[in-house]
């Protein structure tokens, strides 16, 4: 692991909370305004592979945590140098009741489907995203279904316990 990396991040982003989750995994929590800057910064450091964008619903704190995991593409050339194992987990918190944030497509193009999925499953609105159209789900839900306050059992009971009426075509 590159020992100087946490220092570099702290130097450029004084508001960032840098901690090592475990070996080779660095967690960086930043204020949401700085996310695009820090992603561009680590991309320039060689972290050119956006692994995934995820979202965690911390319902007790009233916040969504958006998680961006980046690492680097490393070509294997004969010896295992350990380079390329390092991941940076960049995290931001956004307000649960006002779930809007900016897209990161200008920095990492392959964030597009991930943001679409989070929009659909958690109801987070990504401003600047070219198409926030439905991706996986079949129908509309009263609450986005992956939120912790979505009552799946109740929903299944209401929706599937009875045989739905067939609408006559006019």
């Amino acid at each position, binding site marked *: 692991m590159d020992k100087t990396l946490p220092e570099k991040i702290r130097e450029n982003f004084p508001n960032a909370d840098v901690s090592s989750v475990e070996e080779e995994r660095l967690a960086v929590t930043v204020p949401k305004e700085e996310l695009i800057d820090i992603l561009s910064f680590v991309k320039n450091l060689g972290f050119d592979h956006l692994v995934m964008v995820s979202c965690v619903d911390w319902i007790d704190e009233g916040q969504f945590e958006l998680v961006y995991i980046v690492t680097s593409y490393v070509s*294997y050339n004969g010896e295992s140098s350990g380079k390329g194992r390092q991941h940076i987990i960049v995290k931001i918190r956004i307000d649960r009741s006002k779930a809007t944030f900016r897209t990161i497509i200008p920095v990492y193009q392959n964030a597009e489907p991930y943001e679409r999925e989070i929009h659909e499953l958690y109801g987070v609105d990504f401003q600047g995203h070219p198409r926030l159209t439905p991706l996986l789900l079949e129908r509309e839900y009263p609450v986005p279904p992956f939120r912790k306050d979505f009552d799946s059992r109740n929903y299944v009971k209401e929706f599937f316990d009875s045989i739905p009426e067939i609408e006559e075509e006019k």
Partner: protein
Amino acid sequence: MRELELYFGPQHLGMVGNFSITLSVEGDRIVKATANPGFLHRGFEKLMEMRTWIQDFPLVCRINVIEPDSMEMVYAMAVERLAGIEVPERANYIRSVVLELARIQSHLFGLWGYSNLLGLDTVAQWAMYHRDLVLDLYEELCGGRVYHIYIWPGGVRRDFPEGFKDRIVKTLHTIGNSVPDYDSAFFNNRLFYDRAAGIGVVDKEEAKELGAVGQVLRAVGEKFDIRKVEPYAAYDKVDFDIPTREDGDAYSRIWVVRDEMIQSVHMIFKLLDQMPEGEVYNRVPNPFKWKVPKGETYVRVESSRGELGLYMVSDGGDKPYRVHFRTPSYTHGLILLERLLEGASISDVGNIMLSSYVVAPEIDR
């Protein structure tokens, strides 16, 4: 020329799997392609949040029908990291053998689909037969042909049965002996070259920009393989090569698949030779009361289609707080495929899709 909209799949002869693409076409040229996943969405990640750590095991393998073992592996690795469970040395070797067998059968399944698509049905039948031989091994090992539920946190569910090593060797010899047949009937076949060369070309920069992994990346000459970059199980104990090609088209991708299968066969022989004796399972606490410490982790393995990752958060309870799979088909099927299809011919849709190894259940989850 007039632009038409064409619905390609999920009920279409040229479409494999539960996946659909909406094509805007001019003549037989594709102007724009829009991927529509979701036909298999089962909400596994949500279901897993409602079940205990051990109850998630029968679920996790069902995410990917074709290669359930790497799903089990990535889940087991994440739980082991969070809970701090050690895995016995022999179990690591067994895991590697099982994962390589899974890679072979998954590639054979992919070859079945691909050669069927090109009309080379004989090769498809061979591939299906050889895949079945590998599934027979699985059946003997754990009782299930498709879903194995074999790799658990702390090791594997049970040791190899008596004489199992010999049967693995025998099966692999059967498959290996037919490589010349495969070569003459398929890989060196003019038909394959004519249909696949120059189709769905992606260059190195674009592949990286779009988050490509696996064969797609290795077919542009990038030696990116998690088994080497971040070794897990027993992959740092054996020597193997990462086959690559330079052209980045469908032809290169399928050749990479062929070479990978051969590497896997050699690797299994080496693993079986070196396999130590000993325990295969470290006991986990009582599953009904098992609480995994608070924390988060990201682990990844090299599945047969590329980097498969899992981001897992635990809040210290008896169930995972959040699980999110990063599947290789997700970026391949949703943005890379759309990009590759622009300007392609309608007859090449399945070709491009299968050669970049898009598997629908992985996208939907």
